[in-house]
């Protein structure tokens, strides 16, 4: 198997009855950050229930194969069973009044999307590369670190990798799965197995609710109390207290040494990793397996666990956590890099420097414009390489130079072409987060944003649409110094500016009082 990866995405890009796109963008950024730099994404396949966002998917991922459908609103086999009195009688193990139509639809749509995406992958007859199956909304947005992707180039490719959690006994996390093609293909029938599970056509409900859920263990009352969220919270507070006490008790005196020993003992008791039946215990006799209420059976994670066990995949399944490996330095890959036009408040450089600047950028640069001295455009041509052209602004004022360049950009590359303005190429190429920048530029193109400040402002109202973005009312950052936006958007803001852009706090104050500026909330350069 070559060192390449097929990315298979599924689920809701945007949840029904919600306009929240934050999970989608967080998912894109997370994927880029966590993908192994040495395992290239060779192909992307996607299925979603959001046909209205197909253009967005094309912009962000440019998948080789995609299918966007309207959400299924009926699963007649299951709904009939749920709604009929006969059905409720038949479903004596688990069909429950707690399963409302919405939750059934949500679960089945989730698994059906996954299966359809895998079927799409299979239909493309793609190469035999490792497959990463993930949801569009992969990423930590509002969640703890538990769902973060773990991909390590050193891991053997013949196993199915899933995220581990303390709740693994109940079910397996379905937010991402890394598998060889032979295992990935088996998920094309996942939705059928789930449907059979929920209609009682297999042993899922019986095992889950009555005979005993495999690879679980009945807990004592103490263990149950310990796993409660209140206990966990007390546990976390105690650990913090112990750590701070330990730091304060440094020193060589006998009393302090004894105290540190006691603290260490207490800490080691508290700091034990969670133990689960899936991982730590040998599966025990049938009568001590756990069972759950029927209301909990409509659980995508439990359904995934059943699927993996019933398909005989458990022996080839391995669970990973974010803390297992130190691989941050090997992680990171820009997906579908967004071409930009780069404007520099710098004097023109020789061709070698220009080519180096273009080569060092993680995002393709369609053109570099130098705004100081002779205003020059250095355009990337397919055959000729870099072609230079001198521009003639109306005057030597900063505003006219920038206007001239933006007009040229609009003419050459289009009104919506994304533009990045930087003091110099060195500062641009020192970007600390290319994955975020790539996502941000795509967001700018998608939303047709006029202007986003990139200096890293900390004071503002957080955006609900994109991570680390905020709306700033007032501020002290110089405009058009480090910024990004569409060419036409920047041009329209520039129309209101005075001739010398870098000066005039009065104008700055006035302008910012009239309108808000969107700014990145942390420094990425």
């Amino acid at each position: 198997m070559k060192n390449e990866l097929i990315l298979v995405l599924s689920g809701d890009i945007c949840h029904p009855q919600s306009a929240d796109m934050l999970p989608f963008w967080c998912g894109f950024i997370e994927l880029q950050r966590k993908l192994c730099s040495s395992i290239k994404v060779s192909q992307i396949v996607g299925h979603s229930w959001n046909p209205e966002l197909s253009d967005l998917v094309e912009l962000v991922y440019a998948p080789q194969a995609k299918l966007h459908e309207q959400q299924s609103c009926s699963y007649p086999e299951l709904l009939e069973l749920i709604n009929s009195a006969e059905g409720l009688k038949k479903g004596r193990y688990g069909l429950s009044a707690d399963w409302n139509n919405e939750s059934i639809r949500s679960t089945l749509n989730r698994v059906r999307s996954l299966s359809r995406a895998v079927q799409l992958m299979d239909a493309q007859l793609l190469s035999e590369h490792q497959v990463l199956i993930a949801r569009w909304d992969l990423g930590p947005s509002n969640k703890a670190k538990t769902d973060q992707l773990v991909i390590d180039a050193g891991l053997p490719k013949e196993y199915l990798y899933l995220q581990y959690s303390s709740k693994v006994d109940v079910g397996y996390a379905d937010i991402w799965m890394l598998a060889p093609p032979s295992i990935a293909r088996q998920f094309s029938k996942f939705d059928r197995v789930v449907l059979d599970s929920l209609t009682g056509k297999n042993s899922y409900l019986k095992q889950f609710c009555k005979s005993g859920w495999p690879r679980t263990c009945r807990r004592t009352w103490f263990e149950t109390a310990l796993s409660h969220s209140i206990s966990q919270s007390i546990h976390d507070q105690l650990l913090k207290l112990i750590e701070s006490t330990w730091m304060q008790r440094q020193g060589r005196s006998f009393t302090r040494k004894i105290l540190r020993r006691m603290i260490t003992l207490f800490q080691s008791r508290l700091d034990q990793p969670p133990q689960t039946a899936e991982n730590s215990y040998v599966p025990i006799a049938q009568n001590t397996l756990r069972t759950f209420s029927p209301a909990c059976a409509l659980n995508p994670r439990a359904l995934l666990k059943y699927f993996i066990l019933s398909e005989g995949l458990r022996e080839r399944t391995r669970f990973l956590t974010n803390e297992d490996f130190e691989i941050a330095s090997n992680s990171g890959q820009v997906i579908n890099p967004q071409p930009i036009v780069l404007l520099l408040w710098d004097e023109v450089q020789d061709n070698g420097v220009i080519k180096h600047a273009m080569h060092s950028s993680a995002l393709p640069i369609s053109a570099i414009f130098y705004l100081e001295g002779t205003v020059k455009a250095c355009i990337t041509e397919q055959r000729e390489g870099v072609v230079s052209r001198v521009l003639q602004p109306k005057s030597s004022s900063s505003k006219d130079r920038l206007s001239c360049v933006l007009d040229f950009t609009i003419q050459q590359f289009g009104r919506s072409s994304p533009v990045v303005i930087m003091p110099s190429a060195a500062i641009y190429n020192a970007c600390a987060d290319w994955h975020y920048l790539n996502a941000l530029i795509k967001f700018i193109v998608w939303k047709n944003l006029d202007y986003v400040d990139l200096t890293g402002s900390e004071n503002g109202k957080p955006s609900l649409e994109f991570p680390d973005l905020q709306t700033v009312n007032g501020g002290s950052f110089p405009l058009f110094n480090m910024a990004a936006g569409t060419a036409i958007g920047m041009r329209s803001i520039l129309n209101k500016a005075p001739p010398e852009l870098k000066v005039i706090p009065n104008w700055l104050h006035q302008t910012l009082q009239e309108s808000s500026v969107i700014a990145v909330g942390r420094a990425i350069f």
Partner: protein
Amino acid sequence: MSVLSNPRVHIHTGTPHTLPTGVGDLDRFEQLVIKQTPFTFIRFSDGEIEILRNRKLLIANGITEFRGQKFSNQFPEFDQKRFDPRLGKDVRRDLLSSAMFSDWSYYKGVPTRHNNALDDREFMLRLNGGFTPQMTFSDLFVNSNFLRARSHFFPLLASSFKEILVVGNWRCELSGYLKKGRLIKIPDDFFSSYQITLDSVLARLLEAPRYALILSSASSLSNVLGHRLRLSRADLTFLDIGTVLNDLLGLSMSTRTYHKLMQPNTLRERLTSWRYRQHSEYLLRW
């Protein structure tokens, strides 16, 4: 009845099994030897865990660099090892494969409770796919099992095989009940010549006589060899012996704490031995 004392059901066949104990697991190995059932035993200690986790490890020139901290050490030259995550990708890849492989006759020793290493134990269990009866202690032949392993298990083992091959440092000289064995030498700090060393040693082991015994004192190379041989020569019995038989290999017997248990002569040695037996890490605990 507590979870720990319940008899367990084997996940594969349904045969009963209990959680590992030092005594019980050494009994099991003795039974395998008596029944002439080929098996593999490899160990994952601190050094192997660091490599698996992709952390820099350095044991050389009296310095140990471990988990971002530096300590002084008195390890001999043959105990040196250097793992740089940027350069040791092939070592790590093979070590991960050996840690994740699972088979009836493939036993893996891992750090456990008495090592204060529950995080590592859980990590190794996850790499194994969860607990199986083949999981045991990395300290199976040492600490509280050391004297029994030396006085009973290893002599029994050596006498049960006609052909014995020993993989060890180039300084080794076989003696005692290992004298009839053949030595396959490896260099100091083989990480720097990993692939060449692995290919060379593996080529010789693949030609081992049928049902031979392989004893390996070769640091992380033992793990990789054990895994590869289990796949290609299931007739062989392979044991990672670490430093437990150092004296029979002509190597120093004062590099590990448990070595002090062997024949203490002076009062001081007896006191040191007694103190060690009182230590919390002495008794193997899962």
